[in-house]
């Protein structure tokens, strides 16, 4: 004996084309004699029709992919830049004089040890962080 809750499950299988032939013939026989289940079937069909307009896709935002630089690497890069900056500041501030014999040699040494442009390094670091934040960012183009 099949109870009504099982017929409800069969109605779902039937409407979505997921019913076996045996269960379908069982359901159809039952529907022929059960007014309540026929009404349930009609109502479920109506509900599916109500949902029809929702199948239109919504205007969707656009995903922008960017290269990812992981946070540990960005932090390591920052630390290296900082240490390099510190080292060069100390080096420039306290030049070693041992072994230098005359002022021309000092000038030559300082020219060779010209430090790099740290502002560029720091900008690079900021760019990495921006990329981290912006990774997989979604641009809202609905407006």
């Amino acid at each position, binding site marked *: 004996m099949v109870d009504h809750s099982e017929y409800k499950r069969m109605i779902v299988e039937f409407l979505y084309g997921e019913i076996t032939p045996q269960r379908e013939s069982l359901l159809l026989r039952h529907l022929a004699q059960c007014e309540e289940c026929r009404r349930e079937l009609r109502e479920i069909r109506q509900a599916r029709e109500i949902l029809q307009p929702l199948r239109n*896709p919504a205007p*969707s935002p656009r995903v922008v992919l960017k290269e990812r630089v992981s946070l540990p690497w960005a932090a390591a890069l920052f630390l290296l830049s900082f240490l390099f900056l510190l080292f060069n500041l100390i080096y420039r501030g306290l030049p070693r004089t041992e072994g230098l014999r005359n002022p021309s040699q000092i000038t030559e040494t300082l020219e060779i040890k010209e430090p790099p442009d740290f502002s560029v390094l720091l900008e690079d670091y900021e760019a990495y962080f921006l990329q981290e934040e912006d990774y997989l960012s979604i641009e809202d183009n609905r407006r």
Partner: protein
Amino acid sequence: MSKEIVVKAKRGEKKAMERLIREWQPRLYNFALKHLGNPDDAVDVTQQVLFIMSRQLKKLREPSAFSVWLYSIAMNEIRKTWRKRREEVAEVPDYMGEKEGLAFAALQLLPPHQREIILLKEIEGFSVKEISEILSIPEGTVKSRLFYALKALRAQYLRLKEEAYGRPQ
């Protein structure tokens, strides 16, 4: 969606991963929007799901199960958003027409467990078996829940329609 793209992305091929993301993003956004009823939350969830997917794809054992796996992630993220949300912020999007707006509003009035099952079946077109895997519930429960969810949706739709246009003669 070919299994080949998933396999390539799983191997770490950047182009394949980009294609996966571009192809699935609109579907996930639609799903999240219709579930959460709020475009900002839908964008956040979509972004989070795609991010998790890009990080976890290598762990997916069976590439043919990609869509079921992706929607399991989406359901988790949507539920997390629901828990965080203190108040109802659903609103009918401007682009929707009359019938679509009413259907959308009726959907938002359902409890989340009914809404999710309707969206997975009616909008995303998953089979009962796939939904049972996405939601980790038995197939029999999927069928019963879907039956009662559709009945509830119809009732809410008719109520909203009556409020908007009056009782039909």
